[in-house]
């Protein structure tokens, strides 16, 4: 095990995969000479050269189309989109090309590319640089979507995503890059895409979250424990394909569910979780599913207002209490 920051864990995943497979290459805005806005690709251009770590102009639409065609041509591109807020610009290549080509050509073509991006609020970056658009991509069949919270899962899932034959959208969170954690050593330590993880076992209520919301859920669980409420925290890690088995197992035990997502409430990923729980666990539910997500409005630049809007531990704990009332 090595203690490292989330950004360092991603960096080592990229380095190891590029060492392992010469067809892996990266491109994006300011990822080469500058090392990436969040320093995820620091030192990689020096090590692998300008052909495999490419700085590009600002055109997310062109970059994504490039990634799809490069993947079809036998390489494994890793594209960085600086902010998840810019994902709408990538959608044609993702939704009309990458996600359906395998189907249109009857599996004769693989699209092994990774779109890395980061979203989320909490640092006053305003309405255009703080969104969580998880559901935009998780909505689309043919695309896998992961959102790890720990450095270990970040590394293991990124390596798995690079090796995956399907397009994978890899969602990071700007407030996670400095989080430290133990990361297993070894070049082939992968984390399986589509597997949730029980972060904390509990018996009274299940809290399902991804990315930074897992940390909020864990904090909520500690708050609830003071009142004798035993919350189980499940880090879904993958949004699509969803690990419904892990969800069912937890609800069969606790009979209460709180679903958390930093994206908007209406049509958000939390809504999908809630509906899936209703589909699979209805007879196990002892209360309606509680949803904790972002109110339906633009994210304010003002930090106090932003803080008031973001889903957090207090809101998750309140939702758990409401479910258990």
């Amino acid at each position, binding site marked *: 095990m090595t203690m490292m920051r989330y950004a360092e864990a991603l960096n080592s995943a990229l380095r190891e995969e590029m060492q392992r497979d010469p067809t892996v290459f990266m491109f994006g805005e300011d990822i080469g000479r500058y090392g990436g806005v969040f320093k995820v690709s620091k030192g990689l251009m020096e090590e692998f050269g300008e052909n495999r770590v490419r700085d590009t102009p600002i055109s997310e639409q062109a970059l994504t189309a490039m990634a799809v065609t490069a993947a079809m041509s036998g390489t494994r591109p890793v594209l960085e989109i600086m902010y998840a807020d810019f994902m709408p610009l990538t959608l044609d290549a993702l939704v009309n090309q990458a996600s359906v080509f395998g189907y249109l050509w009857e599996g004769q073509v693989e699209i092994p590319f990774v779109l890395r991006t980061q979203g989320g609020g909490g640092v006053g970056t305003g309405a255009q640089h703080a969104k969580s658009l998880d559901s935009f991509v998780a909505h689309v069949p043919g695309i896998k979507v992961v959102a790890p919270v720990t450095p270990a899962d970040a590394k293991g899932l990124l390596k798995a995503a690079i090796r995956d034959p399907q397009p994978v959208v890899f969602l990071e969170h700007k407030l996670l890059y400095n989080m430290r954690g133990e990361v297993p050593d070894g070049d082939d330590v992968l984390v399986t895409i589509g597997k949730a993880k029980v972060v904390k076992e509990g018996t009274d209520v299940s809290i399902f979250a991804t990315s930074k919301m897992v940390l909020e859920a864990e904090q909520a669980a500690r708050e609830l424990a003071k009142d*004798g409420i035993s919350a189980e925290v499940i880090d879904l890690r993958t949004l699509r394909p969803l690990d419904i088995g892990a969800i069912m197992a937890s609800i069969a035990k606790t*009979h209460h569910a709180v679903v958390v997502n930093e994206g908007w409430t209406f049509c958000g990923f939390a809504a999908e979780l809630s509906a899936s729980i209703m589909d699979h666990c*209805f*007879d*196990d*539910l*002892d*209360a309606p599913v509680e949803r904790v997500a972002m109110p339906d409005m633009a994210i304010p630049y003002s930090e106090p207002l932003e803080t008031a809007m973001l889903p957090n531990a207090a809101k998750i704990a309140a939702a758990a209490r409401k479910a258990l*009332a």
Partner: protein
Amino acid sequence: MATPVKVGVAGGEYMESVVVLEWTVKTGDAISAGQHLVTVETAKAATEIEAPCEGFLTAIFAEPGTEVSLTETLGLIGADTADTAYEGDEPATDHAPVADEASLQATTSEAVSAAESLSPPTPGGRTVASPAARRAAAMAGIDISRITPTSPTGRMKLRDLASATIMRAEIPLVPAGGLSANEAGPLKVYLSGTKTGIPVLMLHGFGADAMSWFPIERALARAHPIVRMDLPNHGKSPRRRMTRFADLAREIVDAFDALHLDEVHVLGHSLGGACALALADIRPRKVASLALLAPGGLGPVINGEFAAGLARASRPESLEQWLKLSVADTRLISPEFVGAAMSSRVDPALRAAQAQMANDLFPDGTQGFDLRPALQRVECPMRVIWGKADAVIPWQQALSAPGRAGLHLFEATGHVPQMERPEDVVAILEALFAASGGKQ
């Protein structure tokens, strides 16, 4: 009926209260609609409150200098100078300005939606229960309409079936020194079923209670009067020490005599089966038929750990293990079932009494009483029903039954055939009852 004067929206949308500065009229004055009556101070400014209608000012409730909420009544405008009758804090009448109406409606609809979010709808007056509570109730044979929900939402939850709460509750350990109480009083008896016909007397097994007959009680109750009894130290019956099986048998016979029944079909399970057999031996002319489900007393072998462990189990986790031992298909022992079973075992005095009883009746893990001679003496129609996967009392003990008894041995069935094979058991019993019509 007088019209109240209120601040309403004039108080400003961010304010909870205002301060009364000055009344420009006095009681008894004639008032025209829209006339300036009183000036109040809000955060923003001094605001004039106008008369909502014409009439006479008949009361001033809020004197200058007092702080009032936006909904309080400042004064009254009556039809004449003596008209002071009004309805407390009723919302403004249709004399109120249009803006007032709109704000009232907004407030009301907010209040309604808040209430809706807490209280689930009750379509057609049906009981509202969570899906999990509804399923658990169905499994336990509980009528949810008779249970009072504890949730502020008014929705029945699992815990209302005495499961979730029990599972979380701190359950005290069995007091050291075992049984102390020696309560007097008759055994608890439950009556159900039809009014006529030969009653079916049901005697439950060790560690259970009269409610444990739910898998077959309802089916039998359609055609027979049902009499269920809680054994001593079980359910709602008194706790008292019995050092020998004969003491227990005496209790059952006494309780039976007190019912003044001419004739009964007797049905007993496990330890209750031993009691049923003893009753049939002691009161042979009262017993129309005898059905024994995995009965005790037919051999020395018993899983002594089962009786002791079941009696001592103070937590759902430990109880679950023993309950699972009693069935072949452990899927029957769901968390809801364990919760329901645990809910009847919360009282540490009950568990202590049962632990003592297990020790007295099954010393050294042995059935300390032998009813095989009594079994040979039974003359009424008799059936012995056993599961061949019984891990508590070996089914081979059924073979000591006399040739005239009917034996029913079920494959892949544990110690509680009435739970694992309810339809079969009911069919066997109905055939037995039909074949032994009694003296009528």
